[in-house]
């Protein structure tokens, strides 16, 4: 018996996984962009403990 036929449930599951993948990729890009903006602002300072190291 073949199980190759795509059940409608699998389409829904694919849509959910694809959506989650896009959201996670967008989140990574967002955090990267936010970090770049934060470190380039004038009031950004490296914490003292890291300067010592």
């Amino acid at each position, binding site marked *: 018996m073949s199980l190759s036929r795509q059940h409608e*449930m699998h389409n829904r*599951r694919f849509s959910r996984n694809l*959506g989650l993948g896009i959201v996670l990729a967008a989140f990574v890009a*967002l955090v990267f962009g936010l970090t770049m*903006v934060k470190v380039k602002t004038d009031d950004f300072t490296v914490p003292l403990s890291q300067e010592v190291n």
Partner: protein
Amino acid sequence: MSDASLNNPVLGNAAAEPYDSNFSDYFALLKPRVMALVVFTALIGLIAAPGSIHPMIGFCAILFIAVGGGASGALNMWWDADIDAVMKRTRNRPVPSGRITGQEALGFGITLTGFSVVMLALATNLVAAGLLAFTIFFYIVIYTMWLKRWTPQNIVIGGAAGAFPPMIGWAAATGTISIESLMMFSLTFMWTPPHFWALALFTQQDYDNAEVPMLTVTHGRRSTRIHILVYTLLLAALAIALAYTSVGGPIYLVGALLLNAQFVRGAIGIWRRDEEASQADRFLTERKFFKASLLYLFAHFGLIGVEALLAPFGLGGW
């Protein structure tokens, strides 16, 4: 989730049908239409605030406020699934329709709550993040779990939760709370009762069935009509007073005068009608007032936004 979910009996009568929720079901948990109002008012709070904010930080602030608003929606749907199931307006929501389980909605809401508050704190400041956390707490614990099923003043006090976004936007830009942000809060706060009471007048049976103590159920429809008029008059005074703060100006004042004249006229129309007249035209006046109330709020915040955008050119404000 495995293919065992092919036999998942989540759907009640449709138990024989396989179901596995898709992405849009989770998106629906966030109450996208409410989220649109949250995004819009928070954005206006942000751009009306004095000083400047980097566009990327501003974008992140609005996004995390929107996610926080969505988290509230998911938690609300988890707790209110029993009410939603008996109301025509809400029975197709993901939890009562069985597309998502209550536990999934709970987990989703809690995760997004933590995520949005922490990310807003990192992107902006602790005042904005604290306000967002308080808003979610207020909406879920104070309104949804406590007041909604207990007092006919549920809408009045619960309206505060929907009124916080412009304050959070303002705090994201300035790190403070001011008279202007408090007045923008008050505008939505005072607008909420007449908006929902008008809805309750023409969806009475829904609230009766759900045993939610709306004013129409506990104090009667005549009393509700009086309440709508009184709150609308108070709202009009507040909306016009906002014109004389630093976020207002002549453009806002003219717009507010016109909008409030029309809104008060609508409230008087509701107040003057009796049930016989309302049922004869299937609540036409009440429906018109409800629709106008949506435009009313968007237009007021839009006018504040116009004043803020024109200010750099020396045109906005007083």
